[in-house]
């Protein structure tokens, strides 16, 4: 097996591992296709494309009350997917900053790392407590509608208000201290540390409209649900 083919297989296996139960069969389907792709490069790009499956934001907008169970299922799957990916990312980052803490050259960087580890644990807490609730597939429509409504509210609140701003605020001090500590430890790296800091602020600023847009989308879906209930 060539390196490219091995990379493709390992990428797809990782995607299968990270996928939520509903997405997993699709990732497995993509993995099963690999044997039929003779070109190594095509197999590699096929596997790279599979990563997108993890980030697909499937949405079903119910047009009638009977669509709600399917919409609730898709929403719950998406939330599960986010929890799974998010947990892997924040745990990975917590381990990274935890390890960096041990080798940090000064107290500023050590404090920054410690704060970032705390921030990652806080995010992990938010992700775990924001998991969708389980509901029996044969539950009646009223129960499924209630669940759908509560999950939409939870998603809306995840992307706005206290939940979102606290996530953003908790990461800031640690990263700023880490960069300043880097500048103090090595004055020749001031430029690169400044760029890192600028990039961090850029992405933090970018997260604000993005999250508020998601919150608005869920608020709109809640309104649609209310209209459906009134009509139904």
């Amino acid at each position, binding site marked *: 097996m060539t390196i490219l083919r091995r990379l493709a297989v390992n990428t797809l296996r990782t995607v299968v591992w990270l996928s939520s139960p509903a997405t997993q069969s699709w990732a497995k389907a993509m993995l099963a*296709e690999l044997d039929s792709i003779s070109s190594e490069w095509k197999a590699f790009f096929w*596997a790279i494309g599979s990563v997108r499956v993890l980030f697909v934001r499937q949405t079903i907008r119910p047009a009638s009350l009977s669509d709600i169970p*399917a919409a609730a299922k898709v929403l719950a799957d998406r939330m599960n997917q986010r929890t799974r990916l998010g947990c892997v990312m924040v745990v990975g980052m917590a381990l990274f900053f935890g390890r960096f803490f041990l080798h940090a050259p000064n107290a500023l960087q050590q404090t920054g790392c410690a704060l970032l580890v705390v921030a990652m644990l806080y995010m992990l807490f938010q992700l775990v407590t924001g998991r969708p609730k389980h509901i029996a597939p044969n539950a009646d429509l009223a129960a499924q509608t209630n669940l759908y409504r509560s999950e939409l509210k939870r998603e809306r609140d995840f992307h706005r208000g206290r939940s979102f701003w606290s996530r953003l605020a908790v990461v800031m001090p640690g990263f700023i201290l880490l960069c300043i500590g880097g500048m103090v430890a090595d004055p020749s790296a001031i430029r690169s540390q400044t760029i890192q800091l600028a990039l961090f602020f850029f992405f933090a600023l970018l997260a604000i409209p993005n999250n508020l847009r998601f919150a608005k989308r869920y608020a709109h879906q809640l309104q649609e649900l209310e209209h459906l209930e009134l009509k139904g």
Partner: protein
Amino acid sequence: MKIRKSPQTLIVLSGFLEDPRGWKYGYDISRNTGLKSGTLYPILMRLADHGLLQTSWEMAETGKPPRHLYKLTEDGLRYAQEQIISQGAPGRDLGYNEVIA
């Protein structure tokens, strides 16, 4: 239910209409439509979630992993025909009555 009708979705639908009764493999659809896996599979997932696409695992042959197969459902065929006609997307008009007969 509402489904997003992107040009790529229409390409996939017209691809299915070329052989509306036959099961297709993901890689074959990708080759025939020219869509990358990262574009194709989210579309297939969306179609399946809306009940427009049937999926099945083929029977495993010895030494070969089973592959996933796809086919439009009756609703999917009707939807595909409507969309292809209304959007004037590329693809053969097979005549809906013939397709679902």
